[in-house]
């Protein structure tokens, strides 16, 4: 039998349905890859038995002639930000080590209901705060890609969904869930040569996902093709009455309606994204993208997003502010770590527990958020940032008056070595400069691989669509995918 772990979501699902192989065979193959890849540290816990049980259920259903779900027989990786019943859920933080939720997140439940199985819980930046997967309590994740310059550095897989990106790129899973707050699906996808889409804010329920910044957090799929992303997003999305911000709108058949013919469509090129000092190869990749979309029949127009430069500063006020409040619940009372020094009172216990349980980046952001919300600073920082957010959204609305989708680079650079930006938080934050604006505006956005750079590392192109128009994003992504012909894979070194 050919290597089942080379197959993607749709190929596995269709193969299982056609009887070309069993779901159990698929699960076993991926379980084996996962077990052999501990060097990448992509998983915090593995759950081979979960994958097998789900596979057996699918095989039994098929044998009984029952209808199979859209993810039937597909074992996936689950970012460890999604609560999974009875399986440790940590957000990669010591403060939640050992926490086994008594509930299942809406998105993971939907995936199991659609026939998917779980290979394990994927590593990530602690509480999804980071762009390199170096803030996890459970260690760094290694990017399966290495530069061809002989340096042999272990590279960052991107973050925060770094375990997800590494696992999918290394064929440990055909697909994985990610979450995106300021670029946490798109940036790691770009760093590892895979695709990932963050849908419109509200498409995927946030219920049961450990919160980072509520007004920005969105779940989405990461996979090796646009079509696989479309299939999996269809299984993840949908109205959830348990989430007040969930969109009460039907989920279109994105996979079924995929169409790379862009005739009659306009692609906007935001001039503000041509920032000084942007890597020449990134700009070249962007030019490729423009050419490919023209080739697909689209008209390319210049658009302006004048407040782009303020997106990152606004993000670094809004996200930490929300996080400082969202993370107040980790106090050592009801679950998770408790550090109770001798003779400590309640408030001392809080301070000790949170000092011991949160990593430095999490502390930094909680404190930053606490500061910008504190008396005397709230209006100058938080209110001003929310006003700027309105302006950023307005920019996009104006731009979408002139185009159907926006094309930009996903990241300003390719993957960098682990440790490179660790002592300079600001340099790390700049990684998200192209991804944050769409997050602030709640818009659907995706990254697709475009080419390898001179060092043999993948680069990504980003597509940003109108609210609710994931289809346009996916279609443009498909047009690029078809023309980029990106079929490189990292050489196995782990």
């Amino acid at each position, binding site marked *: 039998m050919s290597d089942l772990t080379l197959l993607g979501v749709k190929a596995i699902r269709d193969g299982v349905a056609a009887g070309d192989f069993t779901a159990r065979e698929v699960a076993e193959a991926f379980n084996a890859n996962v077990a052999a890849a501990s060097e990448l540290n992509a998983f915090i816990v593995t759950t081979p038995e979960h994958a097998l049980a789900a596979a057996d259920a699918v095989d039994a259903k098929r044998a009984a002639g029952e209808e199979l779900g859209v993810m039937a027989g597909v074992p996936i990786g689950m970012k460890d930000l999604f609560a999974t019943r009875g399986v440790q859920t940590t957000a990669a933080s010591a403060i939640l080590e050992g926490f086994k939720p008594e509930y299942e997140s809406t998105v993971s439940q939907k995936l199991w209901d659609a026939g998917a199985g779980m290979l394990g819980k994927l590593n990530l930046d602690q509480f999804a705060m980071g762009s390199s997967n170096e803030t996890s309590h459970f260690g760094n994740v290694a990017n399966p890609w290495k530069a061809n310059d002989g340096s042999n550095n272990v590279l960052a897989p991107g973050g925060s969904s770094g375990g997800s990106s590494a696992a999918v790129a290394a064929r440990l899973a055909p697909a994985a869930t990610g979450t995106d707050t300021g670029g946490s699906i798109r940036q790691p996808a770009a760093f590892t040569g895979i695709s990932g889409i963050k849908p419109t804010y509200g498409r995927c329920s*946030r219920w049961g996902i*450990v919160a980072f910044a509520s007004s920005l957090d969105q779940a989405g799929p990461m996979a090796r093709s646009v079509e696989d992303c479309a299939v999996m997003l269809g299984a993840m999305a949908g109205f959830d009455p*348990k989430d*007040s911000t969930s969109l009460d709108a039907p989920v279109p058949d994105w996979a079924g309606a995929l169409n790379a013919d862009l005739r009659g469509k306009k692609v906007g090129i935001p001039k503000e994204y041509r920032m000084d000092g942007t890597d020449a190869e990134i700009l070249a990749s962007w030019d490729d993208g423009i050419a490919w979309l023209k080739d697909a029949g689209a008209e390319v127009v210049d658009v302006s997003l004048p407040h782009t430069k303020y997106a990152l500063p606004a993000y670094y006020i809004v996200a930490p502010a929300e996080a400082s*409040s969202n993370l107040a619940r980790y106090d050592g009372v*009801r679950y998770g770590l408790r550090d109770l020094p001798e003779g400590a009172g309640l*408030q001392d216990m809080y301070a000790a527990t949170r000092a011991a349980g949160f990593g430095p980046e999490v502390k930094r952001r909680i404190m930053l958020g*606490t500061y910008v919300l504190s008396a005397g600073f709230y209006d100058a920082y938080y209110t001003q940032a929310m006003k700027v957010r309105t302006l950023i959204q307005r920019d996009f609305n104006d731009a979408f008056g002139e185009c159907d989708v926006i094309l930009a680079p996903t990241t300003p650079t390719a993957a960098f070595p682990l440790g490179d930006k660790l002592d300079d938080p600001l340099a790390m934050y700049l990684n998200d400069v192209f991804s944050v604006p769409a997050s602030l505006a709640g818009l659907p956005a995706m990254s697709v691989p475009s080419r390898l750079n001179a060092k043999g590392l993948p680069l990504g192109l980003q597509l940003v669509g109108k609210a609710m128009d994931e289809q346009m994003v996916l279609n443009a992504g498909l047009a690029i995918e078809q023309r980029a012909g990106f079929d490189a894979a990292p050489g196995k070194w782990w």
Partner: protein
Amino acid sequence: MSNYRIEGATGTWEVVIGLEVHAQVTSNAKLFSGASTQFGAEPNSQVSLVDAAMPGMLPVPNRECIRQAVRTGMAIEAQINAWSRFDRKNYFYADLPQGYQISQLYHPLVGEGQLTIEADEKAGIPEDKVIRIERIHVEQDAGKLMHDQHPTMSYVDLNRTGVALMEIVSRPDMTSPAEAGAYIRKLRAILRYVGSCDGNMEEGSMRADVNVSVRKVGDTELGTRTETKNVNSVRFVMQAIEHEVRRQIDVLEDGGQIVQETRLFDPNTGTTRSMRSKEDAHDYRYFPDPDLLPLELDQDFLDECRASLPELPDAKRARYTGELGLTDYNARELTAEVETFARFETLLAETAKALGKPEAKVATPVANWSLSVAPGVIKALGDEGDMANATPARQAAILKMQDAGEISGGQAKEIFEIVLKTGREPDEIAETDGLKQVSDTGAIEEAIAAIMAANEDKVADYRGGKDKLFGFFVGQTMKAMQGKANPAVVNQLLKDKLG
């Protein structure tokens, strides 16, 4: 103006009082989760994963809680904000699982309103007074800490966590403990009329944060205030104010300064003390809850809220005195409590129907019966009576017999007593137990004739102008008739016979 003044060593002081009342909204489920608001005996049994602030849990607001707060706002003639928002109030405490309370600071659901406290000469409230209400916002209640169950630990019970509260914030318009007491009683009555809160202060359904400051009479600037938290009875609120006033004046007259602080009331001593756990200055870092969108209410929703409002205390009292012709006193007593007016209005309707008369014609006897006669009998009987026997139909039947002159007031009480004890029907009791007035002129005339014969001297005196003797003849006749004669008939016949 209130005449509440305190003579100090350095001059005369007056008091400024504002109240923040937390009223638990009547609802089945909590404000943001589906857990029950009924407090089971079992700790942490009425707690959802949302209330316990498990990772990834999200709030979804309960329509009924919003509706009740809106109706309450309408009942105090307040501005209803069709656009409002929930904010997070951030602080760390063991009774607050999220690490923040979902509340409303910047855009509350209900804006400016008011209520009127009534003049009460005895309490030092010379005339009706309007107390302005700044706002009502909706927020989550916290859990409960138990400090005396374990030597080194406090126990946390989250059953209350997330129950909906209305925080009703008054303006500092009250100037005496009596006004504060009257304000709470009036507010409680309105909440209970509306049905938005059961008003049960003992069980914590209503708690007041009492803001008090003092200043010299004539000063225009407000003094520094203290806030005494969670005072849970009208009496305690008044005590807390009295104590705070005395304490603040003593501090100021000793040359000290009032510290703006949170205090705790001790019901055992009637005193307040600084709250250690709230000592550090709070910076609540309020910001709009990003898990919740703005709350926008449409006209249909608001219309339904208004249409469902009952007649409120002030309107009801006006109708009782105006349309029903009741005295001010009776109207006030009958409208003070929901149960009281409900019982009265049921009996009034039943009695009017039984008598075939308009309500206004029977309102006064029904009011007297409801406020004094019936409660007197019930009280005297104590445990021997069963209130379930006192159906409106039976009470109306008694009132009907009395109205028709078939029974006397005394007999009405006796019959009601038997009704309470046995559940027998009043008509049957009157008949069987001989509790009926005799209106048979023959028997009465016979008795009168005998009395006149036995008291010829008094008859002569009466006829000679000693009118006062009429009472003597009435008494003698009633005695001869063993109290069962219809007094009206007796009067008429005596007048005829005595000439």
